[in-house]
Each structure stands twice: as structure tokens, then as C-alpha cells.
């Protein structure tokens, strides 16, 4: 729990609060061009309206640590609060601490940065969500089989965290063997081709565990097109349109939602509350598990 | 101002001016070209001849003045307008596409006129190209050969072939035969006369006054961007033309004849070549004494064109090349220069000069170690040396920082020669040292070469211009099919003797 009383808030911000001016809050997302950015941004806008603050949604196009750092550096003099999802934990931690040292409150969202002194985190515990995915995979496979893990960026922080959790959960199942982690790259065509080739190379695969938004529907599509739903089970992440459809049709067995809109909302909400003097603590936006049974809840939008 | 003759002029140039940064290339030029005449345009290097031709071609736009085609003022805004007016130009700087075949190059303008979706008529193309080549006596040239693989002379012929098959009313030939052998040139002249007989007007730009006198009906002399005079070719003398071009009497330089035989007799051998075999050359051996000017002659594919690069070690070779007994290692130009050899290549725009660099930089580029200290350039020394060379060679430049590529060709040639002189060579190899150079500059270059020979430099002069060999060389070697077929010296050096050995079978 963090309290304003323990925080050396910058005079500039204090004056603004006292004068009753709206705060300028910046929300830096690690890649504003990915599919979640619009949801996060919507949550940010909702919170800004509710809390009567100015919120700007910023961040690099394409995950780029240097770009994220430069942008925050440039805007540091203007920000009254920063919510950040780091491209790289290690690279952003020193900057977060620098911003805090300038008397500007910082929270993390979506991707935590535990190495920094951030005040609080709003989002999913990534290792935990990976663990959940691993458990789901084990469940749909009935405890035995050969699993391939796919990710569009094996080296990204979120991917590493989820993979850690997933492998941990799968290791607990003696009947399950993880054969490889497939790094597909981010272009949709390349993702699909990589999966297609990997399936051909490993005809005895029985499970695909995707760690993110985008190789999930690609794996589901492969299953759909090859009518392999009985042979190959897919567990993945997020509720992209295509993913929802593939869960409905039974080509993807389960998907884990991370409620991006809620994360964006919570990020701004935490900062606004903190500056008002309310104590804040980590917000777990939860792990939503969707299967054929409950997918109808999200399918109608 | 209207000449009475302007009515019959096919193209009339009136008061045309063209300015380049720092140069007034054309200064109110006026000439009229009449139907069915061969009209020679002569003048020193940089007089503005090519600039004028490029304006006729639609390649350059004049800054002032008017051009009348068939009496009507016409703005030749693009090459297309020029061609539509019946004008065809053979450029001094060849305008060929090296990646395409001979036939494709010859037929390029026909293709340009056709619709984009039409099918390329390969067979017709080949046949017509062959016909055009045959007219120049070049039937042996395979129309399917890639132009990039041709010799400069062959390229020049392809360019001419392309021009003559376009049925132009006005054909501009800007130094069309600077790379051609005598026989090829003769053939070209025949074609020119034939075209004249067909009523075609031919503008002929050349530095070969003998040719001009033999061919032209009228002659326009230009100097410093101005028309000096246009005279009918009825018994004018070469001297008269030279005086008009240069604006003064030339000294006796052009009247040189072979010097006494054995001028360098007794001097030590400076360059010795034993069993040299390289692309186009087999088993060539000769030696040159210090202070001797050795001429090398031969027809275009005799191997003489590869000799310079082979001696300098730019191509793979076998055999021994020694200077004062030290053997030169091939493939190491720096060592060759250090050991005393310097090369002036034939292709000045390609292999010769550093066109994007300044005159000063070019002058010292082959002697960098001497003009630097601890790796740093000695700018002051470089400028001094460059100024000295420019003065010695009487090169016309606007300043030492001018890019070489913006000089006229003759002046480029002088600077490249200067670069070689700065290396203090023991052996100077020159390939086509005066190609495209005006009479005045030629004379200057000859006297420079004699001067350095007198200082004890061995000079190897490889040239297609036989008179140049006769005039300067103490001894002439003739090449054919990669071998030496004759060595002439003293009174034995004559045009007939050289040609006989060059063509003997």
C-alpha cells in the first residue's frame, strides 16, 4: 500500500491540486500499435472522464524501449502522474525511479515493473496467468500429450513471464512433454506460416499453448482448416474477434482474457486517487477464462 | 537580324546564349545550317561546340536567343521535340545503354515511338540493326552482343549506326570518330557524303582539321563561346583555320616531324617487358630506354588497348615487367607508382579522373604519400602543386576547387596528365593521350611529353592516331592479334608502314 503522506509530491503538482486544476496524467503503453491499445485507451478515457483529469495515452509504435524512454523523458516536465507498461522491465526501471524522484507518482499497469519503486500495479499477474494457461492445457489434454508453446516475441518481458508460469504448470504433469517454444515473429502471415511448418515438422503434437493475442487465432485457424480439433487442442490468450469465433466453433479449447479496458481504467484511477490522498494498492484485474461454455458472454458485442 | 540565306536554312541559330555556373559557354551564337550541306564546327576545347549541339538535341535549354526550324521559331524543349524536327545527334559522350544488346540500342528510338503494349519485334530489330551496321562496314558485329562488352570504337559505331538509320534531316556528329581507326573513319565519311547526296544536312564537330577540310562544305569556327566566322571550304588552309580557332599563330609545334634517330641511343633501358601475356596480348616483349618515346600502334582489336592496363598491372598478366631492373608486381598499382610507372588511361570519364573531386585533389591523388604527413593531408602543398601543374599544362579552370567533371574534356585530359607528372614517373604510359583534344592543346601536350622525355623519362605512347605516333615517337611497335608484328624506327616510320604491319594477315 502506498500513501501520499509518504511521497514527496512535486511542488508543481501540489499547487495544481490546491488550485483545483485538472491533473495531466500520462499513460505510457509499451506498444500503442498493438491490438490492445484501443481497449486500454478506452479505459483510460473512461477513467479520465470519471476522475476529471486530463489523460494522454502515449507510447512507442512497435515495442521499442528507447522510444518509450525518450518520450517519457521529453514529457517529464509536464506530467503530474505516470502509468506505465514497460517494454522491458530492466530498461525502464531506472527511468521510473527517476520520475518518482522528481516527485511524480508512477504506477504500472498491464506489465508490471517490480524492480522499480512504482507505487502500485494494476493488471494481471503474468506469471499467474501463464500458470492458469498451463493448467488449462493440461486439463484439455487429459494430463498427457506433446505441447508446443507459441509466442510472437519469445523475448518480451510479458512473454517470458507467461512462459515461466506455463512451463511451471506443465512440468507438474508427468504425462505432458513440452517440445519447443515457437517464436513466430509478429507479421500475421509469418505467424501462420510458422505454425503451419511446425505442425508439419511435428505430426505428433497434441497441444498448442499460445502465450498471446495473436498466435492464438492463428493456431485455431490452422486447426479449423485442417479439421484437427480432435487431434490438436489449443489454449491461448485474449478475446480477439477471431479467437472468440474459434472458441465458439470448438477449434480453440480455452482462452484467457486480461480485461485490457479495465487495466487502462485502473491505471488512471489509481493515480487520481493517490494524488487525492487515498491510499492505493495493487489491483488485480483478474484472469478471465473462456471456453465454449461461457464464450457467449463476450460474443455479443 | 535576318540573313538573306535564312529562308533556305533548315535550322538557324540566332543569338543563342548559354550560361553555366561560372562560365558563359555560348555567347550570342548565330549560325545557319543549309539543306544538304556538311557543316563543320570547330574550335578549341571548351569553345562551346558540344553545348550548342546539346541545345539542338533538346538536352540543354538556352538562356537566350532563338532557334528557327524551317524558318519557324522553335523551342527545343525535349529530345522528343528535336527528333520530331528531324534532328538526330551523335553525342560526344556516348549515350548508350550498356546492359542492352547492340540491336536494342540501335533500335531504341524506334521502340520509343511504339505503343507500350506492342510486342518487341526481335527479328526485325536484329535485321534492321544488322543492316545499319553493314552500312558502316560493321556487319561482323553481332547485334545480340551486350554493348557493355564492346570497345569504345565499337560503341561509337553503334551510336552512329543508331543515328543514321533514323532518316534525320539534320544529323549532328559531335566528334563521332574520336575512337575510330582510320579505316572505320573513312567508311564513316563515305556514309556522310552519301547522306549529303540524299539531301541530309550534317553538322560535323571535330578536332581533325584535315578531315574537316576533306569533308565540309562550310566551316564555322568558334572561340570562347562566340562564332568567329563561317567560311566556305574552297581552298582554305589548315593554318588559316588554326589561326581563327586560337586567335593567334601557333608556333612550329604542330609542324613537328620525327627527330633525329637515336636521340636516346646509349641511354639505359628504363622499362623492359618480357613475354607479357594478358587479356588480348600474348608473349609481347620490348624495352624502352630512358628518354625515349616509344609509340605503340595497331587497329582496335590488336591488343594495344589492353596494353596500358597490363603494364600497370590492373589486369592479370604473366611475364616480367621491370623498371631499371626492379620487377613490378601485378595487382598493386601503388607499388607500380612507387616503382616509377604511371598510367594515363584512355577512358578519361570512366577510369581516368575522379570526376566528383576537385582539380587540386585529382592532381595529387596518385602521390598522396608525398602530400601528407603522418596521415594528414598537406593542404598548402597540395594547392601549390596543383597551381603549378595547372600553369605548366595551361589548363583552363575557374579555380582549383572546381570539380573535374565540370571541365571540358581537353582540360580534364590535361589534369589527368598532370596527375601522372606529379608522381615523378620513370616510365609514363599514355593511352590515347590526345583523344578529343584540340590542335592547340595537342601541341602543348606533345611539347610537355617531349620535355619530360628530355628529362630522362621513358614514355610509352599507345595511340590510334598514326600521325601522332609519327610525330612524336622515336620508335613505333605495331601490334596485331596480340603480338608485335613490326618495329619501325627512323625513316622507316610512316603511315603506310604502320598500316601494313597492322593489317597484314
Amino acid at each position, binding site marked *: 500500500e502506498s500513501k501520499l503522506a509518504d511521497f514527496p509530491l512535486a511542488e508543481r503538482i501540489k499547487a495544481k491540486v490546491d488550485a483545483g486544476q485538472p491533473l495531466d496524467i500520462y499513460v505510457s503503453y509499451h506498444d500503442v500499435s498493438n491490438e490492445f491499445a484501443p481497449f486500454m485507451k478506452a479505459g483510460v478515457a473512461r477513467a479520465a472522464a470519471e476522475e476529471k483529469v486530463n489523460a494522454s495515452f502515449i507510447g512507442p509504435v512497435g515495442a521499442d524501449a528507447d522510444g518509450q524512454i525518450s518520450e517519457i523523458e521529453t514529457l517529464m516536465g509536464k506530467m503530474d502522474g505516470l502509468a506505465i507498461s514497460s517494454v522491458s522491465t530492466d530498461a525502464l526501471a531506472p527511468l521510473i525511479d527517476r520520475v518518482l524522484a522528481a516527485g511524480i507518482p508512477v504506477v504500472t499497469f498491464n506489465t508490471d515493473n517490480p524492480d522499480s519503486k512504482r507505487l502500485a500495479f494494476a493488471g494481471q499477474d503474468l506469471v499467474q496467468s501463464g500458470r492458469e494457461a498451463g493448467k488449462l492445457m493440461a486439463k484439455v489434454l487429459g494430463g498427457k500429450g506433446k505441447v508446443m508453446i507459441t509466442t510472437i516475441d519469445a523475448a518480451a518481458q510479458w512473454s517470458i513471464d507467461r512462459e515461466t508460469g506455463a512451463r511451471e504448470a506443465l512440468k507438474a504433469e508427468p504425462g505432458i512433454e513440452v517440445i519447443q517454444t515457437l517464436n513466430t515473429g509478429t507479421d500475421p502471415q509469418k505467424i501462420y506460416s510458422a505454425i503451419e511448418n511446425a505442425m508439419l515438422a511435428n505430426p505428433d503434437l497434441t497441444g498448442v499453448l499460445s502465450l498471446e493475442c495473436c498466435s492464438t487465432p492463428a493456431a485455431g485457424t490452422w486447426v479449423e482448416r485442417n479439421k484437427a480439433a480432435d487431434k490438436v487442442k489449443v489454449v491461448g490468450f485474449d478475446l480477439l474477434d*477471431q479467437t472468440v469465433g474459434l472458441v465458439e466453433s470448438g477449434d480453440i479449447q480455452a482462452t484467457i482474457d486480461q480485461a485490457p479496458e479495465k487495466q487502462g481504467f485502473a491505471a488512471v484511477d489509481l493515480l487520481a486517487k493517490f494524488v487525492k490522498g487515498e491510499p492505493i494498492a495493487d489491483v488485480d484485474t483478474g484472469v478471465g477464462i473462456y471456453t465454449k461454455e461461457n464464450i457467449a458472454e463476450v460474443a455479443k458485442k | 537580324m535576318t540573313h538573306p540565306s535564312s529562308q533556305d536554312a533548315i535550322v538557324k541559330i540566332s543569338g543563342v546564349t548559354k550560361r553555366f555556373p561560372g562560365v558563359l559557354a555560348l555567347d550570342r551564337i548565330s549560325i545557319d545550317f543549309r539543306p544538304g550541306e556538311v557543316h563543320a564546327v570547330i574550335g578549341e576545347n571548351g569553345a562551346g561546340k558540344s553545348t550548342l549541339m546539346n541545345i539542338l538535341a533538346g538536352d540543354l535549354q538556352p538562356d537566350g536567343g532563338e532557334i528557327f526550324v524551317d524558318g519557324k521559331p522553335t523551342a527545343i524543349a525535349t*529530345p522528343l521535340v528535336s527528333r520530331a524536327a528531324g534532328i538526330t545527334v551523335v553525342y560526344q559522350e556516348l549515350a548508350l545503354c550498356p546492359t542492352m544488346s547492340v540491336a536494342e540500342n540501335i533500335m*531504341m528510338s524506334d521502340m520509343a515511338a511504339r505503343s507500350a503494349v506492342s510486342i518487341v519485334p526481335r527479328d526485325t530489330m536484329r535485321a534492321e540493326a544488322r543492316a545499319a551496321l553493314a552500312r558502316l562496314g560493321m556487319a561482323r558485329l553481332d547485334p545480340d552482343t551486350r554493348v557493355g562488352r564492346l570497345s569504345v570504337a565499337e560503341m561509337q559505331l553503334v551510336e552512329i549506326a543508331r543515328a543514321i538509320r533514323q532518316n534525320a534531316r539534320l544529323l549532328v556528329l559531335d566528334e563521332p570518330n574520336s575512337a575510330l581507326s582510320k579505316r572505320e573513319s573513312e567508311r564513316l565519311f563515305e556514309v556522310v557524303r552519301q547522306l549529303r547526296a540524299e539531301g541530309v544536312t550534317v553538322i560535323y564537330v571535330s578536332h581533325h582539321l584535315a578531315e574537316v577540310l576533306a569533308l565540309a562544305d562550310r566551316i564555322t569556327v568558334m572561340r570562347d563561346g562566340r562564332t568567329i566566322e563561317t567560311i566556305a571550304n574552297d581552298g582554305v588552309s589548315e593554318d588559316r583555320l588554326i589561326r581563327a580557332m586560337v586567335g593567334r599563330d601557333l608556333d612550329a609545334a604542330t609542324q613537328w616531324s620525327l627527330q633525329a634517330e637515336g636521340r636516346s641511343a646509349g641511354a639505359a633501358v628504363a622499362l623492359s617487358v618480357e613475354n607479357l601475356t594478358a587479356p588480348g596480348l600474348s608473349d609481347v616483349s620490348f624495352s624502352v630506354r630512358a628518354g625515349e618515346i616509344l609509340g605503340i600502334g595497331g587497329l582496335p582489336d590488336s591488343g594495344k588497348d589492353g596494353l596500358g592496363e597490363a603494364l600497370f598491372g590492373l589486369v592479370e598478366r604473366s611475364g616480367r615487367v621491370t623498371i631499371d631492373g626492379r620487377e613490378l608486381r601485378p595487382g598493386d598499382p601503388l607499388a607500380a607508382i612507387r616503382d616509377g610507372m604511371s598510367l594515363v588511361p584512355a577512358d578519361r570519364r570512366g577510369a581516368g579522373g575522379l570526376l566528383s573531386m576537385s582539380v587540386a585533389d585529382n592532381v595529387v591523388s596518385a602521390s598522396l604519400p608525398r602530400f601528407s604527413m603522418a596521415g594528414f593531408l598537406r593542404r598548402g602543398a597540395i594547392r601549390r602543386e596543383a597551381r603549378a601543374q595547372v600553369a605548366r599544362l595551361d589548363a583552363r579552370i575557374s579555380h582549383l576547387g572546381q570539380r573535374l567533371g565540370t571541365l571540358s574534356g581537353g582540360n580534364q585530359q590535361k589534369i589527368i596528365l598532370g596527375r601522372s607528372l606529379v608522381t615523378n614517373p620513370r616510365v609514363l604510359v599514355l593511352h590515347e593521350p590526345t583523344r578529343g583534344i584540340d590542335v592547340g592543346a595537342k601541341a602543348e601536350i606533345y611539347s610537355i611529353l617531349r620535355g619530360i622525355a628530355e628529362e630522362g623519362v621513358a614514355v610509352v605512347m599507345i595511340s590510334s592516331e598514326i600521325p601522332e605516333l609519327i610525330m612524336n615517337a622515336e620508335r613505333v611497335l605495331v601490334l596485331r592479334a596480340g603480338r608485335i608484328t613490326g618495329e619501325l624506327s627512323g625513316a622507316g616510320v610512316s603511315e603506310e608502314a604502320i598500316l601494313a604491319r597492322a593489317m597484314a594477315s
Partner: protein
Amino acid sequence: MADTVGTGARAPAMDRFSMSRLLRARETGVFVALVALCLFLAFATDGFLTSVNLLNIGRQISLLGIMAVGMTFVLISGEVDLSVGSTYAFSGLAAGMLIIAGWPLAPALIVGLLTGMAIGLINGVLSTYGRLPSLIATLGMLSMVRGAALILTNGQPVTVNVRNGADAGVLETFAFMGQGYLFGVIPMQLVFFIIVAALAWVVLSYTNFGFKVFAVGGSAKAARVSGISVNTVKICAFVLMGLLAAFAGILSLAFLPSGQAGRTGLGLELDVIAATIVGGASLSGGEGTILGTILGVLIIGVMRNGLVLMGVSPFVQELMIGLVIIIAVGIDKWTMRRRA
């Protein structure tokens, strides 16, 4: 190459076909590399020489191939186009959004293709009349068009399905274009690639337009003095490139059937240029053949596939791809003693 008869380096095997002709052609090096690679894979893996796998490769290379055909024209004309990955994304997504908006197929596709041609036109005009080096003009456009695609889609994925509003009938045809099989066997993408390559081969080798592309790339000056409108020809090459990049982008969307402006086609330009240059086109213009480009595309596709089949780690794959590019082009250079 030195001894090739016919149209020289351009289309050596064109006029008369013979084995010795083929072996002297510019493409030989790449061809040898490809055959060696295939032989190796046939022995080293068991999945390679199956019809399923070969058709898979065929499909996987098709979009790259269609774009590489366009790049062949641009490179021969003496220019380069870095904006193709962005065009691929923009045009595909634009067409997809129109389909989702309920448009019939033909107008949606035509508008998509027109956006590609418009981008090509801008590239061409900037690189000719605008006097910018095409590398800079198209690098600028790479960034601008990517930005435009992000703005157009607001960064949201575009998924073409009935739920999002696409008409079921339209969708069926659209999906067939990207996912279908001709005679139930040959992937439609491959069919399109073959058609595009065949047309391009005819245009480049037999038509006057092809002739002019070689001419302007070989020597702009020679072309100009012959009365060829250099700028027009280059602009046409860029427009063709834009059209083909848009077509590939649309097919990609039809296949997946989803795209996302932040990721689709990112970095594709280097793949396309690499394939084309491996196939013998030259950055300095005037050189290149469709056959060579196809071989270049195949080399890259076969190798990607083979590395996966052999279970090579993705990191080593990355390394091997670079190595094979160098070796494939190297074989060409190192085996030819003489060069024009």
C-alpha cells in the same frame, strides 16, 4: 553470361531454349543453390518431398513472390521501393474494411488496388519529377503509409467475417481467393502468383514496356535521347509495384482473414528486396529477370521450410537465412569468372 546470345543478360533462355544456354544464364548460380538445397532437404528430412509440403511452400512464398515480381520491375528501372510492406498492410486493410462495411467484392477490391497504385504513383512522382532518391522517397512513404494505416484502423485488428458485417456471399468468394484450392489441390495464392509471374514475364520480355524498363534502368540518358519518357516509365514501374503490393496485401487478408496495422507486413520490404536481388536483379538497374526472381523467392521459401522441418532452433534459423542469402548470391558471383 559473357557468351549468352539473344537479349544478353536479360532473358537468356528466351529466344531459343537449350540446356547449355540455361547453364550459362545469369540465374544459374541461384538455380544450383536451390537444387543443392532441395537435394539436401530431401535426404535430411522425411517431410520435405511430400506433395502437401511442397504445396505448402508454394502457398507460403506466393505473396512474397507477387511482391518480388513488382520489385523486379522497380529494380530494373534503376529505382528501389521500401514502402511495399506498408502498402501491403494499408491496401489489404482498406479493402477488408470496405468488405466489413458491406460493400460488394469487386468495388472493395478495386478500391484496395487503387490505393496501392496511388501510393506507387506518389513514390514514382517523388522519385522522378520530385528528384528525390527513391530510397529516401519510399523510406518516407514507408513511415507515412504505416501511419495512415494505423490511423485508418485506429490500431484495431481488421477481421473479415460475417459477425463483423461482411456479406456471407462476398465473404465466401473473398475467402476462396485467399484460402481456396484450385481443383481442390493447388492453393489459390499460388495460382495467383503463377498468373502474375507469367504475365510479368511476357510484359518484361516481349513488350515494348518491358523494353523501356530495361532501357531507362540501363542508361537513363540513352533512353532519354532515344525519346523514351524516362519519368513515365519509372512511374509506371512504381505503380505496378504498388498494385502488386496491394494485391498481395488483399490476398493476405483473405487468407488469414485478419490483419493489424501495427504488425502486418512489418519489415517485409527487406525480404522482398532480398529475394529479388538473390534472383539476380541489380540495385544499379538494367538487370533482372522474372525467372531469377522466382528462383530467389523459392530459395528463401524452401530454406525457411527446411529449417523448420529439420527442427532447427529459430535462432539458428535466423543465422542460416543470412548465410544462405550470401551463399546463393555468392555462387553466382564466384562461379562466373568473367563479367560484362
